[in-house]
């Protein structure tokens, strides 16, 4: 397996119409798609979300009561500490990911862009949906995310992360107190959504929305790896997209 030098994608795209984002590709066997920082962010983010979802669930529905002196335990304290720490990693990682969208390759921008006015994008999304409904015999090849995947990632990770960070830090500001930077930046969210209890509820619904995305994301990634014409799972490890056939389109 050989990969194209990543620099060549920026400077001199191959003559074949292979690497235009969102467009089907032709005869290219391997393309460097996900740069190392993107891959590192992906797996850090996956770990952070796992910790956040688990600890967040337990904050709303705590574990069974422990007996003995209160001074012997710190279960809720530890769970909340893990949640807040993972939350900071999630937020800082997301900020870094936004930065990388500016300085990274053009695939790094896909997460934050929904080509709403592009007819070709919606046609591609429709075709991809048909492939998932078993109405297409053969999927198209994509170097980056396919249009349907881009749609899901834009909403669940692009918008979803912003929502969870804003509501999360708003809740954190309640403990940090008035005058804290969390309160200055995010405190306005609490009255906007109708009070602390409502923000808790929305934050929890946000968690479930992201968990639903993860179920679909993991399934689709594995299925595409097996059934589509390109690599998926290994691409997020090595950064290189390989194609299983040389057919055009």
């Amino acid at each position: 397996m050989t990969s194209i030098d990543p620099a060549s994608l920026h400077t001199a795209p191959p003559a074949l119409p292979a690497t235009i984002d969102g467009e089907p590709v032709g005869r290219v066997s391997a393309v460097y798609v996900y740069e190392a920082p993107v891959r590192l962010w992906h797996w850090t983010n996956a770990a952070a979300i796992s910790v956040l979802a688990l600890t967040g669930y337990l904050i709303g529905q705590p574990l069974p009561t422990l007996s003995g002196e209160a001074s012997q335990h710190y279960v809720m304290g530890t769970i909340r500490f893990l949640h807040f720490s993972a939350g900071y990693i999630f937020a800082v990682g997301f900020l870094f990911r936004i930065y990388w969208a500016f300085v990274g390759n053009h695939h790094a921008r896909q997460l934050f862009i929904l080509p709403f006015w592009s007819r070709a994008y919606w046609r591609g999304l429709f075709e991809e949906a048909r492939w998932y409904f078993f109405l297409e015999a053969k999927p198209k090849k994509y170097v980056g995310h396919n249009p349907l995947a881009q749609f899901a990632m834009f909403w669940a990770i692009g918008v979803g992360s912003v929502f969870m960070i804003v509501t999360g830090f708003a809740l954190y500001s309640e403990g940090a107190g008035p005058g804290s930077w969390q309160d200055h930046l995010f405190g306005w969210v609490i009255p906007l959504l109708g009070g602390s209890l409502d923000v808790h509820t929305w934050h929890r619904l946000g968690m479930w929305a992201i968990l639903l995305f993860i179920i679909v994301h993991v399934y689709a990634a594995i299925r595409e790896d097996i059934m589509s014409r390109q690599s998926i799972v290994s691409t997020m490890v090595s950064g290189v997209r390989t194609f299983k056939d040389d057919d055009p389109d």
Partner: protein
Amino acid sequence: MAGLETFYEVMRRQGITRRSFLKYCSLTAAALGLGPEFVPQIAHAMETKPRTPVLWLHGLECTCCSESFIRSAHPLAKDVVLSMISLDYDDTLMASAGHQAEAILQEVMEKYKGNYILAVEGNPPLNEDGMYCIIGGKPFLDQLRMVAKDAKAVISWGSCASHGCVQAARPNPTRATPVHEVITDKPIIKVPGCPPIAEVMTGVITYMLTFDRMPELDRQGRPKMFYSQRIHDKCYRRPHFDAGQFVESFDDEGARKGYCLYKVGCKGPTTYNACSTVRWNEGTSFPIQAGHGCIGCSEDGFWDKGSWYARLTDLHGVGFGIESTADRVGLGAAAAVGGAVALHAAVSALKRAQHKHGNGSNGSSHTGDAA
């Protein structure tokens, strides 16, 4: 009417010694969370300033705010009412009634134009031109607007005036509306709670009269000195929360041991009030100390946010069933999506097997081989 008499003169006239007066000033300073250096300032203000008239109106309400107010211990409500504020109109507490009472209202409004404080207990219903609450033969809405016009500031007593409370709970048939949505051109101080704590009420009013300014307010218009922290932040059961020791049901061992009431729906973590520090009835107790979770009575819309005995709110307001919580909806959706994924995987596997088989035997009619 008190006219230009100062607070101090009135107190002395009522037989309060100077020593008692100074004690009272220290207590008030302490109640407001001020340092000892403020005591002379308070004393000086009370010696020199004429009493500010307060007009106390009652709309749709249950009078629990008044009931709470008259039980204030620091300062004593009688001191506040008889000595400090010139409570010239309060149809629940005043001796006069009928035309006599309404005449006082007019008199104060004219004499102290732009210089009196309007305290509102309850709220105006807007449906049917305000006919659901009639005071002195006229809709309360009219009285509120009339008195608010020349007021210096407005105090919204309790959750009714601040947020709407029970009469504004869904479906709100009378369209009961909080004061700040009706009076939009005056500074408004919200003192929510159902009722607010007595010392919080007298503390707010004492602060305004002694310093002649509004207390510092938070984003939602509540005085920071009483509403800047959650019940949970200063709860004496907080160590049990951090340890993970909860009352699982009201008759269990944890309940007897005084564990945290979080799991039986305590709203302390989402409620801003001073109950866990100031407490009630001269600092005797507060709901959590009595073994019952906080119901969040000082939070906006607390009637409509689900059970007082469940941690997660129901999503009735967002279009789900009355018994739905975020977890029920989330788990249901996860089960549905998980099922769909499993089904999809099965069909995918079947298709793939079929496709391979088809390619092997009689060639594919498709344009290419997917695998």
